[in-house]
């Protein structure tokens, strides 16, 4: 039984990071109707930044965490300014253009990462990496608790900000109908920039947490995480905040339990098996809604 509970904690921890990653993707999809293929690369830069700050500069973990968020946020700003906004300004661009543009940015960022950080896995030991304690029969890693606390805090803050604040409402309005938001007085361009930057910050935070969880970082986690993030928002329902959170937790649990009780070889594909199963039953995703067209 205690093994099950340990795995449950591991699964939720991993899942909470996935949720945070997917949340950024789903917010950007909401306001821009595009898949941000550069999200994984932004995530990876957050992770690398934290590792450099903590391991190379010897600064405390929280500084590394903040640094990772800030660098990712700045990359998000650059992404919006140079890759997304110029395309929105033009008339008659293909709806696929911003998607291709984000793929371009992700390739550029991955090459920069290779040049800056090399292609080896860099280990990431922090002051809390090796602290374990027992709660009855159950072994608990302190780092898992920290990750859980941080990612849930960010997720919950984001959730209530979206639900209850004036700016959160404006973001949801832009997400549902940019023209309507605009004639009600929302500067949609500002809201979009803000969304891309904060989604990238959240992605960077998730990157740092993954580096903490696995005690290492390499330049392949970006691509892997980007794809998982996409899988999660398809699973949860495109643009749905609840879907991103639920989908992330579900994927984290599934991966952990497959490794613990099944075959670790299935870890990377279990998510996609779940997606196929869910989409067969509910093609719009768990929390997805079908757009009703009114005449």
């Amino acid at each position, binding site marked *: 039984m205690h093994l099950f509970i340990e795995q449950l904690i591991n699964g939720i921890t991993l899942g909470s990071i996935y949720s945070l990653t997917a949340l950024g993707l789903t917010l950007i999809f909401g306001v821009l109707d595009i898949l941000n293929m550069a999200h994984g690369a932004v995530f990876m830069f957050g992770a690398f930044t934290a590792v450099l700050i903590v391991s190379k500069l010897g600064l405390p973990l929280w500084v590394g965490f903040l640094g990772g968020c800030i660098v990712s946020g700045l990359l998000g700003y650059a992404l919006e300014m140079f890759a997304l906004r110029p395309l929105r300004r033009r008339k008659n661009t293909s709806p696929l253009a911003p998607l291709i543009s984000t793929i371009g940015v992700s390739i550029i960022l991955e090459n920069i990462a290779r040049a800056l950080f090399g292609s080896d896995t860099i280990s990431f030991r922090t002051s809390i990496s090796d602290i374990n304690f027992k709660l009855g029969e159950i072994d608990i890693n302190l780092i898992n608790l920290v990750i859980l606390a941080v990612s849930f805090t960010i997720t919950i803050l984001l959730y209530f900000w979206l639900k209850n604040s004036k700016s959160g409402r404006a973001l949801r309005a832009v997400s549902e109908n940019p023209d309507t938001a605009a*004639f009600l007085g929302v500067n949609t361009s500002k809201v979009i920039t803000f969304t891309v930057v904060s989604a990238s910050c959240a992605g960077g935070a998730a990157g740092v947490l993954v580096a903490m969880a696995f005690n290492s970082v390499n330049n392949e986690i970006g691509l892997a995480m980007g794809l998982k993030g996409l899988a999660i928002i398809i699973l949860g329902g495109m643009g749905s905040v609840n879907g991103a959170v639920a989908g992330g937790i579900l994927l984290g649990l599934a991966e952990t339990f497959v490794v613990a009780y099944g075959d670790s070889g299935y870890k990377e594909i279990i998510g996609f098996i779940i997606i196929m199963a869910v989409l067969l039953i509910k093609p719009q995703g768990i929390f997805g809604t079908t757009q009703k067209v009114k005449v």
Partner: protein
Amino acid sequence: MPDLEIETLSVCYGHVEALRGVTLRVKDRQVVSLVGANGAGKTTLMKTIAGLIPPLSGKIRYNGMNIDSLRADEIIRNGISYVPEGRAILNKMTVLENLLMGAYIRQDREVMADLENILEKFPILGTRKDQLAGTLSGGEQQLLAIGRALMSKPKFILFDEPSLGLAPIVIEHIFEIIKDINESGVTIMLVEQNVHKALSISDYAYVMETGKIAMEGNSKELLYEKRVMDAYLGKKAK
């Protein structure tokens, strides 16, 4: 004078020149209606005034100020509110949240008091305030769109086809409300398919045909003008 003046306005919608040199004037505190057949360019004109479509050439002045190059979010800050065709309710938000979005541009402390007033004025919205707006009926959504526009405390409201798709009794109610809003000092520009209704509540009217103003005059006089009907049905005015 806080009039809305439009001068030789031309607008391209896609590749089509939807408006070709439209000139009109909406005087302060009047109700001015704009009638004409489908495709005459009425909605394009409303969207252009609201700042959603940039004009190709021509001038739009409000309160003596040029507003033709302003974005939609700047137009409403100048006191011009928009109730679009099809109502454009935010379906995934509650009735209350839609009304609060209406007050998005306001910073004052009376927003909550005004919200109470709207819910009192439109009791059906009060009983449904926590419901998702997408679940409302067409008539209720129209009330919500009007309430949302009022929440910005506008001086001028653009109404695009407020009666579209509604039952006759609901239409009566909507036109009563529009008259009330005007009597409270708000200038109104009204686009309507329902020519008779539009002319009966407006002071002045313009008839549009294929992107141009074909006729104009006092509404009461236009009511008996046969050519208005012809224009509405898409026939060439002689």
